[in-house]
Structures are given as structure tokens and as C-alpha cells.
């Protein structure tokens, strides 16, 4: 057995147990991003067995495994338990020839291990939570280069597991930033839904009561994923903080706040920001390059709410204007992000939407948009907001 040298923190079982629980990874389904690494390890080392093992109480739980025939095994006497306690790469070239391991139940009994090499996986705080290990029923030797590869692969597994947790946190936060309730606007029905192409999205929508009605926002930040989501959260906060300003100055000021960040990042956002006066049905809107707001009239004709405004964050000293439209009884205002276009019937997207809203209530209609996105590997985030005037 060889053990590499270096100062290693003593193993803290309680802290490690807490860390593995906090990762929310135990009992989760197999994950292609990690299975991919175990497959690579198998190819690279040409071994019959590979495992990403996490230690949980008195058991080993395998997030990914090849050739071990199960996701759970006892922790007692396990090679991986030893590796985690040691806190370094452990290589056992031939367990039957190694006094520490020769009588081990995994060596004497099933699966009759001869060769083991494992490297610890750590949580964010450095707690040692498990291993990436390769195993064989034949004796083997790992040279220094192969040991290095095993450590690199372990680092990769570790970052996937930890990144997944960070993304989980982001998903929860982003969900919390979407409206949780529907504002009560007498005479109107409101519905909205959103789905991310990945885990988090660059789209956002928002609505909140305004004097005499409601303010509604749909925005789409360039790109997808976490970077776009952070900027989207910033725009949302700016607009919310500016809710007492008139529509135009709230957008202008939010844009000013976004501008320096966006131009440094080379990014931009499209925005539709509107205020509906409930009594009159007058909809005032500022459209910043979004161009995806429509009114489906009660007679089945469509009106596209257009403006000439460019997206936010372009830095072209944009002079913005407010557009107006009127919602009459049984008219429906639909605002979406461009991701919706990817899942609609290409030949006639308007007819597709019309058919859906004429055969479903408003909530089910936006639900249908989500269902379409989820069943079609949507390449982009999808957001839909719908407002129907009912009285």
C-alpha cells in the first residue's frame, strides 16, 4: 500500500456527516454528469469497477458506479472509509498480499477485491465526504501519472457534486423571486408560468398592484443560466424599487442602473414593462427590444404591441417612449419570451396560441406552454404572462 505524503487535517466524522447531508445528494437519481466521469475512469484505467462513493452513517452510498451491482454497501471495513479517514490517495496494488487488507471481508468474500485505488472527495468546507475509487479482482499497479489522473478525476467529480448544490440553491432563490401570488385586479384574470432551459433562467416576470391597476414585467437577459439569472434579478429589483415612479422613468432609471454592468459584460436585456389601468382597460407600455406582447381580441384578431425601443444595456443613449393600447372585454394580453416561439407550431404560431386559449382557461393555457416546453427539450427559457379582461 502506498500513501502519498502531506499535512492532512484529521477526519471529523460528525462534520463530514453533516456536510454530506447538506449537499442533498444522498438518494438522488443517477446523474449523467457524474456517470460520464465514472465511464471515463473505467476506460482510462481499464478496470471492471468504478464508484463515486459517499459515506453516510454506517453505509456507503454510491452516486455513480460501474460493476459493483448496487448503490449501497456497509461502511464497516470498507476501503473507502479508510481513504476518507486518511484524507489522501490510497492505492492497494494487491490486497491479498497486504496484511492490513488480506482478511478484509470485501477481499476474502464478494467481490474478492485485489486492487483498490481511491481519492477522497471534499465538500465546500473541506469535509471529507466520500471517494472516487477504481477496483479490480486482479492485482494492478498505478504509476505516478495514473495516480495524478485519479486525483484529477476526483476533483472533477467533487466540483460537479458541489456545483450541483450551489445551483440547487440558485434555483430556490430564483423561484422565490418570481411572483408567488396573483394580484387582485377587479375585472381581470391574470396567469403566468415560466420554465428554465437549464436549471436557472435569464427570463423573469413580475407583477404588483399599481395605482388603479397592475404593473407587469417580462424581461429576457441575453444568454441563459446563472450569469443571466443574476442580471435578471438585478433588473427586477430596480424596477420594483422604482414602482412609484411613472412607467417611463422607472424603465429609464432601471436602465441607467443596469448600463454600466451590462456594457462591461457585453450583455443586454429585452424588456416589456407595462401598467394596466383596470377601470379603463388602458395599457401603457415601454418595450425595450422585446416585441413579444400581443392582444388577442375577442374577434380572434391579433394586435402586436410594437415600439421602436432597443434592448436595455445597449449604451446607445436610447430615447424611450410609452406605447398605449386598450383591453376591451374578453381581450387577452399575452406577453412571452422568445423561448415560446421555439415550442409553438412553426407554420402558424398565432393560430396555435389562439387554439390553446380558446380551449382552455387562462391558467391552463399558460400551463400548456410549460407542458410544451418541457416535452420538447426547449433550447431556451420560456416565460408566458397572460391577462384577460373579463368585465
Amino acid at each position, binding site marked *: 500500500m502506498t500513501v502519498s505524503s502531506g499535512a492532512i487535517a484529521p477526519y471529523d466524522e460528525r462534520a463530514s456527516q453533516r456536510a454530506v447531508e447538506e449537499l442533498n445528494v444522498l438518494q438522488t437519481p443517477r446523474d449523467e454528469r457524474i456517470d460520464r466521469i465514472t465511464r471515463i475512469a473505467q476506460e482510462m484505467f481499464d478496470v471492471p469497477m468504478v464508484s463515486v462513493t459517499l459515506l453516510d452513517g454506517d453505509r456507503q452510498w454510491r452516486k455513480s458506479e460501474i460493476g459493483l451491482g448496487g448503490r449501497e454497501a456497509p461502511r464497516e471495513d470498507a476501503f473507502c472509509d479508510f481513504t476518507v479517514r486518511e484524507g489522501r490517495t490510497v492505492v492497494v496494488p494487491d490486497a491479498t498480499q497486504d496484511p492490513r487488507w488480506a482478511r478484509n471481508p470485501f477481499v476474502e468474500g464478494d467481490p474478492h477485491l485485489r486492487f483498490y485505488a481511491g481519492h477522497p472527495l471534499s465538500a465546500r468546507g473541506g469535509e471529507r465526504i466520500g471517494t472516487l475509487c477504481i477496483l479490480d479482482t486482479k492485482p494492478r499497479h498505478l504509476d505516478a501519472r495514473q495516480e495524478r489522473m485519479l486525483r484529477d478525476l476526483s476533483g472533477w467529480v467533487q466540483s460537479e457534486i458541489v456545483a450541483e448544490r450551489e445551483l440547487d440553491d440558485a434555483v430556490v432563490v430564483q423561484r422565490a423571486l418570481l411572483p408567488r401570488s396573483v394580484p387582485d385586479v377587479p375585472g381581470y384574470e391574470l396567469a403566468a408560468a415560466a420554465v428554465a432551459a437549464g436549471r436557472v433562467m435569464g427570463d423573469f416576470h413580475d407583477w404588483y398592484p399599481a395605482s388603479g391597476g397592475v404593473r407587469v414585467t417580462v424581461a429576457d437577459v441575453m444568454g441563459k443560466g446563472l450569469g443571466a439569472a443574476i442580471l435578471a434579478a438585478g433588473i427586477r429589483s430596480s424596477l420594483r424599487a422604482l414602482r412609484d415612479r411613472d412607467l417611463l422613468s422607472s424603465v429609464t432609471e432601471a436602465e441607467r442602473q443596469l448600463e454600466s454592468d451590462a456594457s462591461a459584460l*457585453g450583455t*443586454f436585456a429585452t424588456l416589456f414593462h407595462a401598467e394596466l389601468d383596470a377601470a379603463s382597460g388602458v395599457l401603457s407600455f415601454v418595450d425595450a*427590444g422585446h*416585441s413579444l406582447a400581443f392582444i388577442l381580441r375577442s374577434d380572434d384578431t391579433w394586435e402586436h404591441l410594437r*415600439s*421602436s425601443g432597443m*434592448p436595455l444595456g445597449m449604451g446607445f443613449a436610447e430615447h424611450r417612449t410609452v406605447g398605449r393600447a386598450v383591453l376591451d372585454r374578453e381581450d387577452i394580453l399575452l406577453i412571452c419570451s422568445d423561448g415560446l416561439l421555439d415550442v409553438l407550431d412553426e407554420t402558424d404560431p398565432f393560430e396555435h396560441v389562439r387554439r390553446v386559449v380558446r380551449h382552455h382557461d387562462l391558467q391552463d393555457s399558460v400551463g400548456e406552454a410549460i407542458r410544451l416546453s418541457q416535452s420538447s427539450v426547449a433550447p431556451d427559457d420560456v416565460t408566458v404572462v397572460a391577462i384577460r379582461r373579463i368585465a
Partner: protein
Amino acid sequence: MKIEQRVVEAVTVLELSDRLTAAVAAQLRAAVDDAIAAGADRIVLDLAQVPFIDSSGLGAVIGALKAARTAGGDLRLASAGDQVRQVLRLTNLDRVLRVYDDAGAAFDGD
């Protein structure tokens, strides 16, 4: 993405040939920055071979436009297909990014 560069009568034409998405945005920006650093002030992106642009691709084009203008020059588009034109129209960016029928016409008369 393949980016072919040619210079025709003091106009630098960058011929792009792939989908213009996040995957190639940095490459496009680098190509334009290199051209500007080499003294180009009239730049045309020839999009005849670009079947699709997404928001990240659009971001790269806008970034390139700003870089060209900051350097005292300009950047124009040529031979864009339907999808690219539609995206420019929807975002109203056709106000700052004119699309010309071909690269040769982009700086005609300027």
C-alpha cells in the same frame, strides 16, 4: 466557426460561416478586435453563411459594433438571412445595425 477575412477597397470583410451563438461569440469578438487593432475602421460582417443567431450572438455583434465605433469606425452587416433579419427587427437593433444586400454595398457612397 470559420471566419474568413478579406480587405476590399479599405473595407474589412469578415465572412462568418456557422450559427452565431454563445459558443462562437468570443471568437467573433476577438476577430473584430484584431481587425480594429490592425487598423480596420470600416468593417462588414458577411452573414450569408449564418443560418441562425441567438441573443448571445447578437450581443457579440453589438459588442463588435461598439468597439468599431469607439475606434472611430463603423461596422455593418451584409447578406443576412431571414432569421437574422427577424431578430434584428424584433429587437429594433436594425436601427443601429443596417443590413446591406452584399458586402460590397455596405460602405458604398461613404
